[in-house]
């Protein structure tokens, strides 16, 4: 039997400690204080999340206008019909999904790789942690300004670098085929730190003796990563992916500030379409219908993901 095959036996596989008693609270006495402690959160949650969401769904069936009080005339499914037949709606939905496709893989994979490297660094580990996490604390407007400067045609740093290497200067934010990639690149730099920290925390939860045992058995570093680190981090990965998909679907700030949804609408995401319809065009009823459709999309994506990970976890 080879060493790796040995390690692959079920007994050696990392097992999560499961204590059946801690999974359910059976004592009735705890319920009351629990609700009491939850009240401040629940009040705010009802007032600012659940309430407005219900109002949004109601409003989506009316021709509500920003400039008139009340809900306005009943529109039935008219707003939904208009949205589903509008090429602008579908284009903006696709831009949101395209951005998600462009950003989720690098934000998950790079965060993992950098966390792994930072975890291995023996000296100056604090510096690497700080360096990767620092961009994340920037407000979106600051991050956008930095990258607008970097991307500025004729004068920007990136353009200068590319032209000094002998290439033509790409029109980073002005080319409809490139603009979304540029936004995605800036976003990866900006938000990588969050996933990085989650992975770093996950890495520190892996017992060191697993690695010791593996190396005593002759496992190479790459085998250790593949057979220990990645499986032990599977829950972190599920969490990172689902958080990242939702964060990427929420894209608004970057195109709103950096490209105004342009060039020629090439980067206008669903939320900016909602903004344009609701606040620029005063059609809050229609904007509510588009928001509801977007809500359904996010819900569907999250549901599919939860379903897939549940199955994966049951398989473990």
């Amino acid at each position, binding site marked *: 039997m080879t060493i790796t095959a040995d390690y692959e036996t079920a007994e050696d596989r990392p097992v999560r400690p499961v204590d059946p008693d801690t999974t359910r609270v059976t004592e009735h006495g705890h319920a009351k204080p629990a609700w009491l402690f939850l009240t401040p959160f629940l009040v705010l949650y009802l007032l600012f999340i659940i309430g407005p969401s219900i109002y949004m769904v109601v409003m989506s069936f009316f021709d509500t206008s*920003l*400039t008139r009080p009340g809900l306005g005339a009943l529109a039935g499914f008219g707003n939904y019909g208009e949205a589903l037949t509008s090429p602008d709606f579908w284009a903006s939905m696709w831009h949101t999904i395209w951005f998600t496709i462009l950003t989720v893989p690098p934000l998950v994979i790079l965060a993992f790789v950098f966390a792994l490297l930072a975890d291995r660094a023996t000296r100056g580990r604090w510096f690497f942690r700080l360096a990767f996490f620092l961009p994340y604390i920037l407000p979106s407007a600051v991050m956008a300004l930095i990258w607008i400067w970097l991307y500025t045609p004729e004068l920007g740093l990136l353009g200068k670098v590319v032209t000094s290497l002998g290439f033509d200067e790409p*029109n980073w934010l002005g*080319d*409809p085929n490139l603009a979304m990639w540029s936004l995605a690149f800036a976003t990866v730099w900006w938000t990588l730190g969050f996933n990085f920290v989650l992975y770093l925390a996950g890495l520190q939860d892996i017992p060191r003796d697993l690695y010791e045992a593996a190396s005593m058995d002759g496992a190479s570093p790459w085998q250790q990563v593949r057979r220990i680190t990645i499986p032990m981090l599977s829950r972190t990965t599920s969490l990172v992916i689902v958080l990242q998909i939702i964060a990427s679907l929420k894209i608004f700030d970057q195109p709103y500030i950096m*490209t105004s949804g342009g060039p*020629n609408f090439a980067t206008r995401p669903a939320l900016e379409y909602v903004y344009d319809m609701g*606040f620029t065009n005063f059609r809050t009823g229609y904007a509510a219908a588009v928001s509801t459709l977007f809500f359904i999309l996010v819900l569907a994506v999250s549901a599919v993901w939860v379903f897939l990970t549940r199955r994966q976890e049951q398989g473990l």
Partner: protein
Amino acid sequence: MIGPVSRRTLLKGAFAGLGAASLAACSSPVGAGIAGSQLDPGTVDYWNLFGGGDGVRMQSMEDAYRKANPGTPLQAVTLAWGNPYYTKLTLATVGRKPPNVAVSHLTRMKTLQSADLLEELKPEDLARHGMSAEMFNQRAWNAGLVGGKIYAIPIDTHPFVLFYNTKICGQAGLLDAAGALKPIQGPDAFTDALAKVQKVTGQYGATHGINADTATPWRFFQTLYSQLGGQVLSDEGTKVVLDDAKATQVLTFLRSLTVEKKLMPSSIDYQGAIALFANGAAGFHLNGEWEISTFQTAKMPFSMTLVPNVFGGTYAVQADSHTLIVPRGGATAEGQLDLSLGFIKSMLDQSMTWAQGGHIPAWQPVAQSDAFKKLTPQSNYAAAADAAVYDPSGWYSGSGSNFEIVMGSAIGAVEAGQLSPDAAIAQIRSKLSALASTASPV
């Protein structure tokens, strides 16, 4: 060292802070809004959207009003420019907590009026404060009327203008003996002037914002298209009357400047276009006159003049006006209207201060004064006020509107070489038709 703060101390502190804040808030607009009470009667509550140099000048005008009217407290609120401003103004008025006086672009005021959010201003009330129709620039005044009724008092006209670097244009031989730009007439003369400047700068003839900037391409297009006598919308925005031949002519010309002759950069944003002009990489810059302060601060040799009459028809140039409005419900308290009109008159009387920011005063006693005529470069393009073309009427039109975004996106794409003029016109037509056929939400 400070020891760990106990939870109880923290809570106590937080409650004390909240209490103090709520007490202090009672007399402020925020407090009045939360409590649902009126602001002190006799106060003028004034909202505006001016930042930068305009913001500084507006504050000095407000201070002058305060000094002259010590008995009338002035509560001035400056909000972020653009859609957020109009959203807040609309919601405050719908929610019956409007300011007494507010700034609005003339092209936006029409939408507010059709939503029934403005008080009509009666000529007899205006006369009491020394204001009447003939004392204003007629173009701006008439553009602000709705069905012959007055809803807004224009304070200026802010046209699209041509900035030029006097040193570069002098080297290119484009200046007359007095050091002013020689008149440029016709598309060939304009192209030629840009080419001469390009030889001096080695980079570009002119610049204007294209990337992430839909307003500037629209302003340039509208200027040239209006010189051909073209219109985009009619019947309050319910009909698209775009003239394909004229639009093609303008778009083809714009494309030749950027894509074919490379006299203007085809991919530059608003700030980049300003920077290229300021550092001498271009001798001309097309923008609204409000950027005057930027170039004055840059201490560069420049002047400003009318955008040339490229297509030779009746001279026309894209412009808008800042107006002062009284939102519905903003004058219900006894004597409030007179306070508001007195404030408006005070702003008009200080038009000379306002003109420092590049704006052409709508108030004729100042616009016709010797002092303004001596003010350069403002007086060079003062004629633009009489040739001003405002955005067409329509609920989706006006400054920063979806109409400007639809037009500017397609025009910018032509200038960047991403769309042919034909494709751009087809795109404009399809997007505008969708808006034109939508029932007005206002």
